[in-house]
């Protein structure tokens, strides 16, 4: 009985960990979607930002988050 309880607890913890992992992945993907949807930022692409700055003559604002 005790062994079954331990296994069940382990499975629940594993499942919780997986859900947590999914949440973090979802958060990262949602950040990409939401920020791209604003149309205000170049996302994770520094060379593209530099090319844009060269073309427009604007300075760069690079945010690490």
């Amino acid at each position, binding site marked *: 009985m005790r062994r079954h309880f331990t296994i069940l607890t382990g499975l629940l913890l594993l499942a919780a960990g997986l859900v947590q*992992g999914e949440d*973090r*992945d979802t*958060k*990262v*993907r949602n*950040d*990409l979607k939401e*920020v791209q949807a*604003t149309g*205000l*930022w*170049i*996302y*994770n*692409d*520094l060379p*593209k*930002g*530099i090319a*844009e*700055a*060269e073309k*427009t003559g*604007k*300075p*760069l*604002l*690079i*945010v*690490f*988050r």
Partner: protein
Amino acid sequence: MACKGFDEQVVRHDPEIQELMEQFVRVRIVQTNGMDLSLFQFDFDLTFAAFFMNADKTIYGRYGSRSDQKDPMRDISIEGFGKALAAALAIHQEYPANKAALRGKKGHSSQFTVPEAYPSLSKYKPKLDYSGNVAKGCIHCHMIGAAERQIFRNDHKPIPDEVLYLWPMPDVIGLTLNPHEKATVVRVANGSPAEKAGFLPGDEILTLEGQPIISIADVQWVLHTARTPTTLQAAVRRDRQPINVSLSLSRNWRRQGEISWRTTTWDLRRMALGGLVLEALTGADRRSAELEDTEMALRVKHVGQYGDHAAGKKAGFQKGDILVSFDAQTNFMTETELIVYALQNKMPSVRVPVTVLRAGEQVNLELPMQ
């Protein structure tokens, strides 16, 4: 977390800064995988950091400061960020006539070109796979700091002050700056290097070591890269008049700093304290333990439970123990002082004798260094 709110205000162009933001090409980076470490040098314990830059990679300035784990907004504000944006635009308008003054804003070449080149981060790829376990593949900023310290431990070398007391806040030299301004002095601490240099409340720091200063982070950058001992030259605006100030810093000036709030200190605790978290006893707690104010008294606040962070637990340390001696020395008044001593004097695999008070009795234990 409050810092998340700040980030959202920036991402969505808060009305207070919208007009300024639109004058920049805006790039958001959410990974450090593949990041050029010779170019992007900033406080890796931050959760928000910004660079203002020319397309030729000349750095105009930095933004993002932190000195407290619980209150990430203590040292930043949208108002201050807006003033830094405006100042960066002014620098851009003068560019390239001001290029020589900006040279010092870029650091020396890094030993490792990208984070994944560090031995302890070699399993990571230079790009994120958004279709897979994207979060798991991400190198977080703080992991770079931890990887750098691990190099010293692997080589059995002391970790220098510059690597432990990194990105000093201006408070370390006695200057409290206003987070709602670029770099304006609010308070000067009595007896501090800043007071001896002649800084006064209300001074606006215009340049430091010839570099234009547009944020508290810019002041931190100059302090972070300063040699010791040294004298730094500052230009300040006081009552609309420019004034030059010489700031002399002694050999151990960095040691006024405090590192226990930093995320990367979690890994330092593994190395130096076997995963213990310590807090200094104060007031009534000292009296009930019958300890004088001048005596070492660091209470175990948390005992790590897993992996290398459980080394303290395995050595017999318990939550509530009060460390009164470490390596036969009794002069460590803060967790920071103890961690720094251990990482500069006790190499991995050494066992350090420690005396603790437990229920009023002295207990002798040995703490393994890692």
